[in-house]
């Protein structure tokens, strides 16, 4: 009951390796999805290949977002752009990690390849402060124009819990302490 032309994840990994070989690093399988790291300078080329290659056919754009890995512990890494695309023809899932420089985060826009990225890049821009050169209209999507800071960065703390602790037991192990 899977898609008619579906290929297995290991096959998908081989195909990605074959098609994108030198431009991507650390390709592996993660829960059935092909997962790799791609440097920003190679991204446009890689995404175009993913979409146009007849062995991959990843024409479906799932999402683009960011992850701030600065507090993920050892080997966590820094800021990255996260892209997911899917091939309806071969049922291949591809997750692309694009590490960007936290001091001056910049990642080329892929909105010329996947139109769906237009909104996702605007959101990632305001939430993580990542610039997307090549985006035609990189304005805020959710936040007011004069909003200061980039809320999805780990350094942006939610003030409510910092100012005042939650009044009462919120976890099973605290319940014994009586909460209030």
């Amino acid at each position: 009951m899977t898609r008619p032309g579906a290929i297995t994840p290991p096959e998908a990994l081989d195909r990605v390796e074959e098609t994108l070989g030198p431009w991507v690093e650390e390709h592996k399988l993660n829960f059935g999805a092909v997962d790799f790291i791609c440097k920003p300078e190679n991204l446009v080329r890689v995404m175009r290949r993913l979409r146009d290659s007849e062995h991959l056919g990843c024409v479906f754009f799932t999402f683009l977002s960011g992850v701030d890995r600065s507090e993920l512990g050892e080997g966590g890494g820094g800021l990255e752009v996260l892209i997911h695309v899917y091939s309806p023809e071969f049922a291949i899932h591809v997750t692309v990690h694009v590490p960007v420089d936290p001091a001056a985060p910049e990642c080329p826009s892929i909105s010329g390849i996947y139109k769906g990225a237009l909104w996702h890049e605007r959101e990632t821009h305001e939430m993580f402060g990542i610039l997307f050169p090549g985006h035609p209209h990189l304005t805020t999507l959710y936040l007011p124009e004069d909003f200061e800071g980039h809320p999805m960065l780990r350094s942006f703390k939610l003030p409510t819990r910092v100012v005042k602790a939650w009044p009462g037991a919120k976890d099973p192990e605290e319940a014994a302490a009586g909460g209030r």
Partner: protein
Amino acid sequence: MAMTTEGPKPASRGAGAEGRLQTEEMILNVGPQHPATHGVFRLLATIDGEILINAEPVIGYMHRGYEKLVEQRDYRQITNLVSRMDWLSGINNELPLAMAVEQLMEIEVPPRAQYLRVILCEMNRILNHLMFFASFGAELGAITPTFYAFREREDIQRVMEATTGGRMHFGFFRPGGLKEDVPRGFVDEALKGVRQVIERLPDYENLLVGNEIFKQRTIDVGVLDREAAYSYGVTGPIARGSGIDMDIRKDEPYLVYDKFDFDVCSAPNGDCFDRFWVLVGEVGESARIVEQAIEDLPPGPIMGKVPRVVQAPAGEVYVRTENPLGELGMYLVSDGDRRPYRLKIRTPSYSNVSALSHVLANTYVSDMIAILGSFFFVLGDIDR
């Protein structure tokens, strides 16, 4: 109302050499409050005479920052947050979160819980689709569908309420299973509800789908082509109305969807009529799934082996499920804590509505509401 799929060309703006009226562009602000939007949504429309040249959706009026909030809360608390994203499909929203945690923790969900999840999700899909059936009719000036749909909705709504205690925000799925077993009489009531829907579905089809006025307003209006649908990441009934046969329940069966016999509704033209046709067709398919699932419903526990404190081990997983409005995906990055390190929520309405400006360009102003309505979106799902 003869309109080609390419849409009308903008009227000439120069002095009427061909005898046309001189027109100029103006900007029309639709919303943020408009009855045709399920939430607070604004459309900046540039119009020239009767023609919409460009339409830019403005969102963010209901942004609640869920992706930030979930980083402060543990997995049990998040269930109730995500339930409020698309408020017409509350229980479906809870599913990918539970599944993501289960995959990282390698929890096995008992069969009874899986069957009940399918039943509840599909009943919720019926509720969702009937709501859009009602509202789309109302947007086109037909009020009767509202009364029809709400009559059937109420029966299923009552079953959901008796089971979960909620009418919109259910908070019923847990990582590992369900909050509790279904109450006595659930099977009979649920069967009665969905059988009634199946029985009355022909009425629905006759009421709108076969209606000449309805056809005039929707056929060949607001065409979304396949390539654009892929490129924008459009999913659900909207994509299937454009000839895309993607349905995650079939493509990558999760829960126990591979055990049921149902069809993926799709239609080739990508216009408002086809989107609506798919939506109505899916009501019947969901009802069929519920019937089969209830028949096979196994006894047994409703919770898997879950530790008292739910802590997902470090790792990353992307889980996607077929929400009533399209693909709902959650990309969970865990560092081994009780809280997610990062949870990217990919909601269907967000990607679907981002294709609106593409579809609305070069259409008639009078078709605008029909096209908006046929995109079946919930603002809470877009703004999160």
